[in-house]
Structures are given as C-alpha cells and as structure tokens.
C-alpha cells in the first residue's frame, strides 16, 4: 500500500516535472522570438534613418551643382545664389525688433526676467510640462542674448571636475521634452554644483525642440561656466528643414517664426564643437577621423560652418565633393587655404570644413582604419586603432560621443576608450530603446544612468511592446517599398522567367536588397511583406498590396507620382531654400528651373512637360505660384488598414 501510493506520487511528480519543463521551454522559445522580432524592427529603423541621412548629404552635391548651373540659367534672378553663397546680413537691429514685439497682458505663459536667474529655469520647465508656449518676444530675447554670449566661447571648452563637483553628460535629445524632464528629475536642475554637458542634436524629430532649446539656453545664460553645449549635426538650418524643427517653429510661431529661424541659423554656428574634461576626456557629438587635429579645431573660425550641406566654394569651380573620394586609409593633408594670398574668405578652407564634418558625423566601428561613412554620406567610420592614435596624440584617455541610438542608452567600445551616450528614449517608437546619461568626476570611473519614458503607469507586457515597434517599422519599410515600385517590378520580372507572377523567396530577397539598398534580413521579414504559398513561392506583386500612393491628379502617370513621392524630402528641402522668406510659395518659373536641375542631377527619367502639367494642375489659384507644402502633401501614402479604420469610423 505504502509502495503503490508513493510510486503513484512519484509518477505524479514526474508528470508535473515534465509539464513544467514543457511550459518553461515554450516560454523561452516564445520570448526569444519576440526578442528577435524586436531586433529586426530596430534594424529596419536604423537602416532607414541612415539611408535618409545619406540622401540628405547627397543634396550637398546637388547644391554645388545648382550653384554652378543656376547662375548661368538665371542671371537676373540671383536670389537663390545669394541665399546659398552670401552670409546672412548681420541682424544688428534685432534688439530693436524684439522691443517692438509686445507681450500682451492676456498672455498667460511663462514670463522671463532679464538678467535671468535660476527661477526662470524652474518656471520654464514647469510651464513647458503643462504644454505652454513661450512668447516669441522672450524666445527672441533669449536667442539674441545666447548668441552674444556664445560668441565669446572658444571652439572647445576646457572643464575641470572634482569629487564634490561631478559633471553630467547627456546625448541626443531630439526634441523629446519628457526625457529632459526625466533627467532633471533624477539628476537635478543645472547649477554651479551640478554642471552639465549637452552633446548636440537638441532638435528635430521630437515635437518640443524649441522648448528644449529654451531650457538649455536659459540655463546656459544663468550658468555659462557650468552648462556646456556642443553642436550636433542637427544644429544646422538645412537639417532642420528636412527633419521637422523648421516646421515646428513656423507652426508654433506663425507671426515671428521667420525671424526666430533667421537668428537660430546664425546662433548654431556659434555653438562650440567640443568639450574637454580634466584634460582627459573629449566630448564631441559624432566622432573622429584619421586626420582629426584638435589644434586646428581649436583655431578655426567655427561660425563659418553654416551647414553640412553648403561646402566651401572653390575658386576653380571644382566642387567640394572630391572630399568624398577620400580613399581608405588616406590622410587628408590639404594646406590651410587653397590660395594663401586670397582676400579673407567667408568660408572655412576645405580641410577645416572636413575636420568639422568628421567631428559631427563620424561613427566608431570595430574594423580597424578609417573609411568614408557610406551609410550616412558624411564623416567616417573610425576603428580602435584610430581612436588609440588620436587620443594618445592629444594626451587624452577617453572619447564620449553621441549621434547613434543605442538600445540601452549607452554603449562602450574600442576597449573602453569610446563611449556613446544617447538620451532620447523611445527614439524610433515607444519601447525601442532606453536613454542614458553619464556622471564623471576626476579620479573616478564614469557612472551610467538609464531611464525610459513611458506613458502608462506600468510597462506594457513585452509582446505588446514588440508588436507596436514591429508594426511601426513595417509601416515605414512599406513606404520605402512603394516609393520604388516601378524599379522593383522590373527586377521581379527579370527573375520571373516563366512570367508566372511568382518567384522564390531567395530571388525576392535578392531584388529587395539590390533595389532598396537596405541591409536587412529580408527572408525573415518576408512574412510581413509578401504572400508566400505553401511551396515557398512568393507572389511578388503582393509586395504592393497594402499600400498605395494617393494620386493628386488623375491623369498623371503613376511613375511620376512615385518619383515625386520618393524625392519629396529632398524637394522639400530645396523648396525651403528657394523660399527664403518662408512664405510657403514659390513661383512657377522657379519651380520649373529647379525641377530641371534636380532632374538632370539625379537622373530622373521624367519629362519636364509631365511635371509642368502637374504643377499647373495644382496651381489652383492660377496666380503663377505654388504652395509647395500643399504640393508635397498631395504625395502621401495610404496604408490599407488605416483606410479601413477610417471607413469603419465614418461608415
């Protein structure tokens, strides 16, 4: 009796053990697949982000091309040439202008009192948390005063810490106010005993770029010795045109936005490019290259670096694009100026300009040596050997940089010599990554602090977060796919020898990779993007099923629509440049001339007459000018599931 009951107990516990093992095994498999899906989604975001930046950099060569040709074509319309070549006339009467802008009594937003004090910092942070908007009068006052003080700062600030005075280093914020508030909540507001370095990219992408700037600039004006700002690649008026900050300003400040943008454009050029802490740690936004020379960087006139997209003009008419032909490992040793007895130039020399680009755009990689950063189109990839050499050459121990989103908010590489810190959590999408900041003091190891902003009071379960992330990533990937529909169909049909409408997954993956030039795990993603039958054959036209580009005018060719959709970010940037007074309108003639140049430089196979027809059709007023925001908005994409949702709501 005893025997049989204990053996049945044994049997029971053996069954329970087996059951437990089954559940644990299943859970771990499930969890791992979620983790992999999360990585795939992040890979999609990252590769599209860098491809976009590369596209932006390519505009640089287009502008050089434009300058070369536009001047010939439009000798009596030098507006564009002036815009790009001449420096903004000094806004000497801006002080008077600010006084003319009256803050009404009815304004219930934050009010600043000059000279600024700690109270102003606090009141700004509180006000912005409640989504208030700072009046343009104060914005302009802060900008003008900030520019004045920044002009007195060196290119690279030297800072000392002590055990009682640690310094905090933050990375990219990209307009995410919640993250800045979270940092201040955890780490305290800036003060003499709580110094900060903000390492660039304060603006673009997020929706509170101006608020972040205001908090940072006001803090800087109150504590100029303890709040350090480094320029990032997004502190650049041309980047702002494409990545959202210009729009944010014009939307929040309808009356005075243009003025704000003008002052900001110049202010950016006065931001220091780096900080050195305790003569040991170099803090810069992007990275370094084989030829990085801190002495040169200390000396150059940083305010001549207007934009990464406006390379210095060369006398002989050559473009600065030969910079990009810098071969692997070759050091750029151009002399300081091209012609030493030139009259003082408004530009940096080519060599100086490249040095700044490297600082703002480069990324560390594990491969040795220094290579052009082909992903982004600017700066380099630098290896651990480059780091070791440059650091030792300048007697430094560590490089802290930002510029790249890291899942944990920070990452250490190059044997601990390079640290990336990124402070915008949920950068790509809710749940995509944490943010971090670093605390340093002399003689102690750096300390890392992580955080993640979340809307809910508690974190959603992992599978839900992965779902959100994945859906978002697939959505933007599909937008890239539809933008290359014609080229993709050609490629598919080339593989489809039997004209069956089907190809193998392998062939499909090959076509996607070669046309879209995004290094992604296409096979693993195929399930989300195409229909695959049981024999593993892909119905390739299903790549385009869930999404289409809205046609603004019926009679226009799909290929034209697709092309304009594909280049719309570039076109937007170019339009905004031409529209120097930010009116939102350009003339038909300007549009035609610009389009001609664009088409020939980018080798777009669209006839001018087609574009003409389209532009005319969209000039509703028939007054000879195009509202280009309307023009560009017309080329939007409709996702099928969104359309269904709309029908349900209004059905």
């Amino acid at each position, binding site marked *: 009796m005893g025997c049989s009951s204990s053996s049945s107990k044994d049997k029971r516990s053996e069954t329970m053990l087996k059951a437990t093992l089954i*559940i*644990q*095994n299943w859970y771990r498999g499930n969890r*791992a697949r979620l983790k*992999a899906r999360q990585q795939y989604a992040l890979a999609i975001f990252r590769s599209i982000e860098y491809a976009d930046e590369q596209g932006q950099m390519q505009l640089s060569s287009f502008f050089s091309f434009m300058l070369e040709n536009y001047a010939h074509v439009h000798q009596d319309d030098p507006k564009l040439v002036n815009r790009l070549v001449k420096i903004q006339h000094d806004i000497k009467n801006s002080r008077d202008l600010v006084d003319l802008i009256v803050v009404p009594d009815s304004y219930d937003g934050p009010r600043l009192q000059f000279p600024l004090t700690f109270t102003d910092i606090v009141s700004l942070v509180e006000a912005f948390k409640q989504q208030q908007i700072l009046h343009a009068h104060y914005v302009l006052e802060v900008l003008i005063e900030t520019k004045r003080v920044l002009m007195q700062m060196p290119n690279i600030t030297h800072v000392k810490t002590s055990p009682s005075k640690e310094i905090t280093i933050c990375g990219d914020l990209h307009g995410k106010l919640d993250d800045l508030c979270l940092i201040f909540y955890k780490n305290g507001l800036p003060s003499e005993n709580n110094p900060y370095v903000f390492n660039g990219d304060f603006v673009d992408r997020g929706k509170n770029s101006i608020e972040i700037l205001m908090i940072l600039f006001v803090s800087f004006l109150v504590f100029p010795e303890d709040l350090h700002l480094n320029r990032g690649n997004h502190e650049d008026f041309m980047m702002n045109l494409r990545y959202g900050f210009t729009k944010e300003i014009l939307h929040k400040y309808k009356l005075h936005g243009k003025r704000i943008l003008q002052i900001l454009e110049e202010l950016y050029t006065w931001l220091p490019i780096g900080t050195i802490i305790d003569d040991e740690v170099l803090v810069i936004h992007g990275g370094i290259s084989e030829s990085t020379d801190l002495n040169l960087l200390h000396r150059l006139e940083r305010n001549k670096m207007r934009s990464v997209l406006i390379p210095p003009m060369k006398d002989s008419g050559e473009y600065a694009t030969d910079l990009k032909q810098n071969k692997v490992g070759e050091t750029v040793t151009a002399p300081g100026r091209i012609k030493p007895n030139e009259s003082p130039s408004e530009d940096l020399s080519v060599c100086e300009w490249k040095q700044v680009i490297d600082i703002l755009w480069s990324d560390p990689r594990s491969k040795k040596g220094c290579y052009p950063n082909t992903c982004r189109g600017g700066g380099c990839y630098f290896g651990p050997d480059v780091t070791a050499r440059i650091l030792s050459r300048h007697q430094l121990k560590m490089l802290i940089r930002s510029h790249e989103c890291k899942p944990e908010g920070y990452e250490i590489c190059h044997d601990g010599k390079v640290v990336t810190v990124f402070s915008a959590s949920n950068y790509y999408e809710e749940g995509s990554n944490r943010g971090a900041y670093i605390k340093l003091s002399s003689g102690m190891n750096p300390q890392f602090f992580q955080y993640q902003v979340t809307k809910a009071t508690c974190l959603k379960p992992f*599978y*839900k977060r992965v779902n959100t992330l994945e859906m978002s990533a697939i959505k933007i990937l599909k937008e890239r796919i539809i933008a290359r529909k014609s080229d993709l169909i050609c490629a598919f049909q080339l593989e489809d020898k039997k004209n069956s409408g089907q190809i193998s997954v392998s062939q499909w993956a090959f076509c996607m990779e070669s046309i879209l030039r995004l290094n992604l795990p296409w*096979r*693993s993603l195929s399930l989300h993007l195409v229909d695959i039958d049981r024999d593993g054959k892909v119905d390739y036209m299903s790549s385009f099923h869930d999404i289409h580009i809205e046609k603004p005018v019926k009679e226009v060719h799909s290929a034209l629509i697709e092309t304009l959709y594909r280049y719309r970010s570039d076109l937007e940037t170019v339009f905004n440049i031409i529209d120097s007074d930010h009116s939102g309108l350009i003339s038909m003639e300007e549009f035609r001339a610009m389009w001609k140049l664009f088409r020939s430089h980018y080798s777009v196979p669209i006839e001018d007459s087609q574009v003409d027809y389209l532009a005319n059709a969209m000039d509703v007023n028939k007054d000879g000018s195009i509202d280009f925001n309307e023009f560009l908005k017309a080329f939007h994409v409709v996702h099928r599931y969104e359309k269904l949702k709309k029908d349900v709501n209004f059905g």
Partner: protein
Amino acid sequence: MAEEKEREELAAAEFHKKIKEAFEVFDHESNNTVDVREIGTIIRSLGCCPSEGELHDLIAEVEEEEPTGYIRFEKFLPVMTQVLLERKYRPIPEDVLLRAFEVLDSAKHGFLTKEELIKYMTEEGEPFSQEEMEEMLSAAIDPESNSIHYKDYITMMAIDEN
C-alpha cells in the same frame, strides 16, 4: 539517392542564408561574431526549441576552445545547419502545451493562481530567473482575478506568433 542528396544540398543552401540573416541582426559590430548570450535567442528565432540543457550543449559545440564570450559565424553555421536539416528541437504543439498547464492545474479550475505558477516555474524543472518570471506574469496574468487563464493566454500568444 542522388536526387535526395541534391535536395538536401539545396535545403542546406537555403538554411545557410536564413541562418546568416538571423546571425547578422545580432552581429552589432558587423564582424561575424555575436555575444554568446544571444546565441539562445538566435537559435530559437530560427524556430527551434532546445531546452536550457540542450542549449548549453550546443553552445559548447560552437564556442572557441578558450571561450572568448563571442561566437564566430564560421563555427555556428555548420552546427546550426545540421540542427535545421535534422529538424531537431521541434517546437511544442499547442495541444501538448495546453495539457501541460492542465496537469499543473490539479484542481481543474481552468486557471492557475499567481502563487501556483510562480512556485512551479521558479522551483522546478529548469527554473525561471526573477526577470523571466516577472515578464511571464506581466503578459499572462488577469489583473482582476490575479490568476492565469492559461487557455486564453496560450491562444493569445499563438495568434501573436502568426
């Protein structure tokens, strides 16, 4: 026989590409290595379900003689290809999983209490870490009753996977 061998070669070639893709997503440095702690994730993302013990053995196969903390692709590829060709570590069918939960649910309630689940998962078999336990609970638990309605939970996860 020759035909079968050819089919196997084709299958292996296809597996190679799949394995390479899955590996590259975790190869953050783009130098054909991944952190050994990610190997389990990679293997499972390819559809296999080894137990912790089996995973441990697999890692031993692909590690360097002197473990570096990194696994090289050249070592991983042949081992993983073989695993896929032999269809090893097949995932658990949904009905088997359901029955496993039912076994633990000795009172046949249709649900497990939070305490019961924690006890089994963290004390028996290949125990969960605290992080794993918290994560499973966050998805599985019904906040109102503080219990796990396992049939619904399994169904939800299965839909999500597909």
